[in-house]
């Protein structure tokens, strides 16, 4: 037993000795241009019970472009739904809060387009009727939203760790709800056509 331990120790030590000595670079490795600037996790907002995504930022994070993949289990559908969403968000103002690590982007406006794939979804345009009978697609949705986010810059984060975490909300709607609302202004309230999404983003 003791022998085995000694043997293991010896193998371990020889391994260390055998490892080539590494010269640590004095610059950090470059970040490839195509690496996403953030990853995100979202709940609801018409884009899935949960959705994961990646995104890019432009104009000092005032513009964000996200791609999400969402999931709705069969329990809340006919068959499980997969929802692919692309969205663009513009948040012009960034306000540092009293504690310097916290910040607020009080207002955001954006738009999304989504495609829902689901085996059981009865398509509105699959040739059952003459063309144009149903003018909308039951798979593709587009819509606007407004929102906001709180962000937190983490202490002691290394080059590899996400530097900033932000929590966001989105109040939105979609083309079909807005069409219904427009024809019934004064009757159908905005509250009735709004959807809420909540999410978190990890930024590098």
């Amino acid at each position, binding site marked *: 037993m003791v022998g085995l331990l000694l043997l293991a120790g010896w193998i371990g030590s020889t391994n260390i000795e055998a490892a080539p000595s590494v010269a640590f670079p004095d610059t950090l490795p470059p970040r490839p241009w*195509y690496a996403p600037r953030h990853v995100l996790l979202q709940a609801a907002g018409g884009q899935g019970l949960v959705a994961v995504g990646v995104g890019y930022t432009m104009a000092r994070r005032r513009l964000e472009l996200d791609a999400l993949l969402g999931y*709705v289990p069969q329990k809340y559908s006919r068959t499980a739904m997969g929802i692919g969403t692309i969205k663009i968000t513009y948040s012009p103002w960034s306000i540092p809060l009293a504690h310097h690590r916290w910040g607020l982007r009080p207002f955001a406006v954006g738009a999304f387009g989504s495609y829902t794939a*689901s085996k059981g979804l009865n398509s509105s345009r699959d040739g*059952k009727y003459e063309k144009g009978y149903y003018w909308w697609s*039951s798979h593709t949705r587009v819509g606007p939203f407004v929102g906001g986010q709180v962000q937190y810059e983490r202490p002691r984060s290394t080059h590899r760790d996400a530097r900033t975490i932000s929590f966001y909300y989105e109040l939105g709607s979609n083309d079909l*709800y807005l*069409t219904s609302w427009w024809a019934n202004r004064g009757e159908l309230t905005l509250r009735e056509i709004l959807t809420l999404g909540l999410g978190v983003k990890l930024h590098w």
Partner: protein
Amino acid sequence: MLFSLLGRQWRPRLLDRSAWAVVAWVLTMADLLPITWLLSGCDLLELSPNETRTPVAYRDLTRKNLEALQRRANPLAGDTLRFVFIGDSQRFYKEAEAFTQSVNQLQGVSFVAVAGDISDFGLVREMRWVHERLRRLKVPYLTVIGNHDVVANGREAYQQVYGPLNYSFEYGHTRFVFVDTNGREYGFKGRVPDVAWVRQALANPGPGISRQVVMSHVPPNDADFDPHLVSPYVEALQRAPRLAFGLNGHRHDFGVTAPFGPALPFINSYAFEKRRYLVLTLWGPQGFQIDSVSY
């Protein structure tokens, strides 16, 4: 994984310890969503416009309305029965509100029958929007599924919000048989309408039943009715004892036709957009009167 594919040199640590805590928190919140939503009644958190979730207050409405109907005594004497007949509420919310106010001023009405196309896009929220207005009716309302209610996940949404696609009930010496006839939505596969069910539902009316009424969305002489099933369906109706007439929507306008012989009349309803509805008064096995009301 993703990042190791993307960049060999710059490899971010996707989740370090504190980030894991954040993810755990969000997942917990996501798990709690249905519960918090139920507790707070917050229907803003929408998983998809095609989801079929609906709060309890907007669930099983057919059963609830039938129970409410059975609790009400027929306001008219003898075997006379009066009900309001309209169809296609799809996207006409202003009209639904005005309709409710108009019907609430009527006397002697037992219930409202809506001949399908409750929604336009087959979305659960649309059905809730319609109920939000029709629930203010002083009398119960009963619906049958329309082709627009079958689009997308509409069939499941309709089943959640209203209930069965085929059902029958008896009230005021009358047996009502409501049946899904939206054959085109099911690809004309010879299964919708369920003729065997219709036959059985219309069989052997009890001695207290003066007449039977069938309501469906798509009329049997319409191009959207499954062509394979027109004759068996019509035959089932013709053979049904004491069938007064068939009721349909879909065409958005009023009409009384008898395409399969004078013994089997069909009455088509106004759509909500027409701002008119029918008041049907029935007596004896065949007697009926149609009044049209503008609102």
